[in-house]
Structures are given as structure tokens and as C-alpha cells.
């Protein structure tokens, strides 16, 4: 399989993630979009690892690390979102703007 296919796929995935992060108002959707971007990176890592025929498979290993870290991140992220919802009864991140001038 040529390298181009997974790269184009990953680029689409990443762009979708960026769009989601920048455009969605719902905090949960933003977190999910972040997951999309992370997984686009994972695809890249695996693709390059296979392309370069790495003996140590460091690309795959890194991808597993990213999955683990992403799980942790999403756990904390959802906890924060939950607390915000309890306090302000909204998960719309436009309305969460306490740290401004």
C-alpha cells in the first residue's frame, strides 16, 4: 500500500478534528474533536513506521502511548466538563469565559 493513502486519510481526520475544536460550542464535542486529531497523528505514526520498516516498531509503540495518554486526558477533560456543568448548568464553552480581561 502506498504511503499516500494513510497520509491523506490522516490529514482529513486531523482537519476534521481542527474544525471540531474551533467551531463546535459543546465542550464534549470539542473533546471528541481533540481525540480525532490525536488519532490522526496515530495513523501517521503507524504509517511511517511501516513505511520505514523500523525493526523496533517505535511508531506503533508511540501510537500506544498516545492512546494511553489520550485516555487519561479525556478522563480529566470530561471531569472538568462535568464540574462546569454542575456549577453553571452549561457545557457551552462560549459561556465559560471567566479568565478574560
Amino acid at each position, binding site marked *: 500500500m502506498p504511503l499516500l493513502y494513510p497520509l491523506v486519510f490522516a490529514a482529513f481526520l486531523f482537519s476534521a478534528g481542527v474544525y471540531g*475544536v474551533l*467551531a463546535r460550542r459543546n465542550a464534549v464535542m*470539542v473533546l471528541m474533536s481533540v481525540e480525532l486529531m490525536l488519532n490522526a497523528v496515530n495513523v501517521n505514526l503507524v504509517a511511517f513506521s511501516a513505511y520505514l520498516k523500523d525493526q523496533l516498531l517505535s511508531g506503533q509503540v508511540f501510537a500506544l502511548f498516545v492512546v494511553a495518554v489520550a485516555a487519561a486526558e479525556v478522563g480529566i477533560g470530561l471531569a472538568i466538563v462535568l464540574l462546569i456543568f454542575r456549577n453553571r448548568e452549561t457545557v457551552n*464553552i462560549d459561556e*465559560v469565559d471567566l*479568565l*478574560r*480581561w
Partner: protein
Amino acid sequence: MERLAWLVPALTLAAWALILLLGKRLPGKGAPFGILAVGAGWVISLGILARVIGGGEAYHLRGEWAPFASGFSIPIGITVDGLAAVLLVVVTTISLLVQVYSVGYMRGDKRYVLFFANLSLFTSGMLIVVLADNLLFLLVGWEIMGICSYLLIGHWWEDQANARAAIKAFLVTRVGDIGFTLGIFVFFWAAKSFEIERIVAGVESGAISGRTVTLGAVLLFCGAIGKSGQFPLHVWLPDAMAGPTPVSALIHAATMVAAGVFLVARMFPVFEASGTAMNEIAVIASITMLIAALLALVQDDIKRVLAYSTVSQLAYMMAGLGVGGYEAGVFHLFTHAFFKALLFLAAGSLIHAVHSNNMSAMGGLARVMPWTFRTFTIGALALAGVFPLAGFWSKDEILTEAWNLGFGTPAEHVATSQGIAQIVFVTGIVTAFLTAVYVARMLWLTFGGAYRGAGEPHEPDGFMMLPLVLLAVGAAFAGLVGSPLVGENNFGAWIATPQLPAHGAVIVNWGVAVGATAVAALGIGLGWSLYRGGLPEREYLTRFPLLYKTLERKFFLDDLYEQGIVRPVVGALAPATYWFDQRVIDGAVNGTAIGTRQLARGLRHLQTGQAQWYAAALFVGVVGLAVVAVQVVGR
């Protein structure tokens, strides 16, 4: 004993610090400590003088003040030779007596402690000048005296006039000090050293060119003009009478004004090498002695009479030095210290008694204050140069030097030109006459006639009386140490230094001596005939309105300075610099701060609190960086 010389200024400095820090809690409010310190210094000084008289060698203590990595170092050190020894004794004696006197005079003053602290510091300044072996160290003592004179003249600063006099004294001497500092630089540049010994050696060996010597000497003399109140910078001295009387005595007899004469004496080999500098000294001294003596004739304030007489007598010393009479000039400095301190302290006693400085409020005091009268008269006659009191011998020596150079045959080569020596002799004789006249005027206005004042005059207490009596003894007999009646040349041998060996016997010209005495007698006679009835309805000089007006306005010098310098500076220059400082310099600093704050006010609106805006900015930044990485770095 010479090894202890450094202790003399160190003790008074220690006394200053002690009185300043703990004065209020010390017994006697600190005054005994100042007296004790200068008393110990006096004993050491006498020991040093005894060694010098016995033919001891000059002692030199060298040290490093600030060594630099390049091998150059700023020296600090003291020289104890005959000149320094004599001045040490004079300064400590006068300072000791003045401080004892001040215990009585200043009793009950609200800044009593500060006054004694300043007296000690003032004395230290002069002692440093006397002992310094290099010009930089000398400058330190010189400036200490500058600040002390400011503090002491303005001791009663609540009165605006006193504060103004203090500022005037400080600023006018500063004008001369600029020249002095430049002179030090010239000699440092030429001799590569601040040490007086090396500078003198450089001048005498010809290593320093004649022009440089002249330039340096003239600049150094500027400092002496300022400090010793020579024309045209003498204007601060009469105003300095605003200070308490003991301060006037100290300034006029031992410290401050003596420093300028001492500087010329200390650097005498340098001045001697330059005809221009010697001529300048002699001419300026001639002008000063004449105008000061004339001004002394019309003053009503007794301290101002004495102040102008000091200016005139300092000019006498300078004139003596200017015609090559090193011994004569220093001898007059020595004798003058005694009788002028006596006159000031006795005048202080009069002022204390009648509560006024003005002679128009005195008169007839001889009966109520017999001891003040006796001591004051001795001082006044010594000032007029009456045989055999102190002033006679030294004044006569100066006139003889001028006569020998101008009209006779000088014993050795002198750089001063003959014509100028003739001017010095003639003005010297005229000044001697005028001195006798104003002395007689002063005596009869204060002690003769009937009492015109308001208060109840009385003799002062023991603290004030004792110094008067001791100084009267000095004023009567101090001249004998340099008199040809006692030895060939005692004083000359005392103040001889390695660079300036003694000249042998004092040359006595009996013609000059008799002539000067006759002139003095004539002057006293004239003064007596004019003023014996006390103060007449109006001054005699008012019959010559033009002359009286000129003298009353002090030859218009103060007006000239006021209109020509003070007015433009205070009126235009000072506001302009204030504006520049406030608007431009402070404006730049404050402008930076205000600009930053305005910028921040605008920029803070970027901080919206919208997380997605931040993410968008982050994304744009990352894309930008990626583009840069690919387009610029990746190539």
C-alpha cells in the same frame, strides 16, 4: 613624635563623630570631648615643633588609598616638616582656645551639640590640608572646610540673611575651587603624580615645561583666591560674619582663609618657578589689600571691620609670598592668627555684652569691660603694626622684602618683576596707614566717648575671658620668634623644608621699619583726631559723597555679581534647567511608563476568555511555523 602626627586630625575627626552621634547624652553635651581631642592634638603638635626646632628631619608617611589594577594608585600620606609643624601648632592652639571660648559664648544655643561637632570637623579639615603630602588628599581637607564653613556660617539659618551668606560663601569659594581642581589635574598630567614632593622635583629639574608650570600655578592660585578671599572673590568673607563669632575667629585666624595662603606656601617652589604666577599673586594681593582696607573704613558692624581687615591682611601675606618672601608671608600668617583670633573673640565679648554688632550701639566700654578693653587694644595695635607687638615684625618683613626687590638689591633671584615689587611696596605702605586709621576708628568708637547702646554691658565669664588673655599674650609676643632682636632667623629655620632651605639671617632694613612705624603712628593719630569724640553725627567720609557711596556699595562688586551673575542664573537659567529636567528628562522617563500602560490597555482586549479563540490563534501559529520551517529552514 612625628610618628604621632596622623593622630592630630584623627583625634578631632573621632571627636566629631562622637559628638555628632552621642552628643546629647555626653557630659557637657560633648564640648569637653572636642576640647580634649584638640588639646591632645595641641600637645602632640608642640612635641613635633620641638623636634623641628631641634633640627629633626622631615618625616613622610606614605600609604595607598585606592590602588588600581594598572599599577597606578591614589596615594594618601602625610608630610611633617617645619611648615606643617608651625601650622599644626597655630591651628590646634586657635581651635583649642576658640572651643573653650565657645563653651561660654554658645551656652544655651539650641544647636549647641551640632556646633561643637562642626568645629571639630572644621579643625580636622584644616589639619588634613596642613599635613597632606599630595594634592588630592589636600583637596579632601579643603572641601571638608568648604562644607563646614557653609554649616557654621549658616548656624542660625532661621534668619534668611544667614542662610544666604552661607550659600554665598559656599558658591563663591566653589568658583575658585574649579580652578584649583583643574590645577591639580594639570600637575598630575605633567608630573604623573599627585605627590607635592614629586611635582616640586619635576618643576625644579625642568621635567615640566615652563608654560605648564605657569598654567598649573595660576590655576592653583585660583583656589587660593577663593579660599583666602582675594580680589575678586573676597565678597563672601564679610558676609560670612553672619555666623557665630567663635566661627568667625576660627575661619579668619586658623582655618579656611589660612588654607589658601598655606597652599601657596606649600607649593612655593612651583610658584617661584613662574614669573607670571608670581606677578599675578603680587598684583592681586596689592589690589585686595588696598580695597579691603578702604572698605574697612566705613563699616559700622565691628565684625565687618575685622573681616575686611582679614581680607587686607591675607593680601599682605600673599604679597609677601608674591615678592618671593616665603618666610615673611608664612610669618605674617603665624602672627596674624594670634591677633586676629584675639580681635574676633574680644569683639564677640563686646557683642555678647551689648547685644549688637554695630559700633554705633557701643562706645565708652573701656570702663565697664576693662579686660576686654586691654586685650582688644593689644590685638588692635598688633594689627596696626605697632612696635614691638606681633604684627610689627611680620609686616615689616614683608615690606622689607618688597623694598629690597623693588628698590634695593634682593638677596637672591626672584621671578617677580621689579616694577610689580614697587607697586607692592607702595600699596603696602598705604595699606599700613589705612589699617592704622581704621584700627583707631574701631578703638575709639567702641571704647571711647559715651555709651550709646541699650543693654547693660558686663565682662564675660571665665570660659570667654581665659582665651582672650592667652591670645593677648600671643599677640604681644608671637612676633618675637621671628624678630632679629632674639636670634638671627629663628622662624625661618623652623619653617624651612627640604625644598626651601632657610635663607640665613633676616635682612633688617631699619629705614623701612622706622618708616612703616611712622606711617602707622600717623594713621592712628588721624583716626584719633577724627573719632576721639565717639561716633560723630555723621561719618566724616560722607562729606565726600561719591567716595562714600563707592565704599558703601563695596566698589559695586556685589552689585555687579548680583546683576551680572546671580540675576541671570536665578531669573532665567535656573527655571530653564528646571523646565528641561521636568519636561525632557523626567518626561522621557514618565513617557515610557505612560506609553507602556496605554499599549497594555489596548493589548489586553486580546485576552477574551474564549478558549476557541486561543485555539485558533494556536493553530494559525503552528501553521505559520510549519510554513516557515518548510519554506525557509527546510531549503
